[in-house]
């Protein structure tokens, strides 16, 4: 059902959805085994904040988008320094890179 041949294997959408539905059914069953006898409105309903008190202002416990993947960018900091230096924002660098790549292709084409 809906299988395509990818050159060295098969990909079938129908079977994948079937297996995913099975996994989803199992997940919902396991989730339904929880306890329903908690008291509403007490500390049992608060979400877990690693033991710290939950702040009132939601902005205090948000993780701003600018600092996501800090570890990744810090680990590759030399590569990122080079990359940000490369993307200067000067219009003339845009044109110079285009002209440079075209010249490179021209030289390579004439050599072949």
């Amino acid at each position, binding site marked *: 059902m809906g299988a395509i041949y990818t050159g060295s294997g098969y990909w079938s959408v129908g079977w994948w959805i079937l297996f995913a539905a099975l996994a989803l059914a199992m997940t919902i069953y396991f989730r339904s085994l929880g306890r329903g006898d908690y008291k509403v409105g007490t500390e049992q309903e608060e979400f877990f904040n690693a033991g710290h008190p939950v702040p009132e202002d939601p902005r205090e416990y948000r993780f701003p988008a600018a600092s996501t993947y800090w570890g990744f960018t810090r680990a590759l900091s030399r590569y990122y320094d080079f990359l*940000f230096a490369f*993307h*200067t*924002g*000067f*219009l*003339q660098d845009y*044109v*110079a890179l285009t*002209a440079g790549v075209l010249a490179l292709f021209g030289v390579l084409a004439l050599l072949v």
Partner: protein
Amino acid sequence: MTGSMPYVAVAVLFLCGLYMVLFEHNLFKIALGITVMEASANLFLVVLGYRSGGGIPVYTLASREAMVLPTPQALTLTAIVIGLATTALLLSLVVWAYRHYGTLDIQQIRRLRG
């Protein structure tokens, strides 16, 4: 050698235009550099069609056989009109850039980077 002189002129004009776009800082001079590059492209197209000793290709029962090619002239007209549209839009963008940034120096217009 005179047969190749027009093509040398095309190359010189093109390089002058490219130099203006790459190394001039004033926005109007960059726009002018693009205009010079377009002029070199138009010259290239017209020169392509020239046939030595050829006549104007508008006669039906012409007196001589050799004619200059008319197709590149049509291509050049199209390219001139396209260049006109682009230059008009580019110059109006330059005017608006001056209104917003207060300067015509391309090195100062760099808010979008990275």
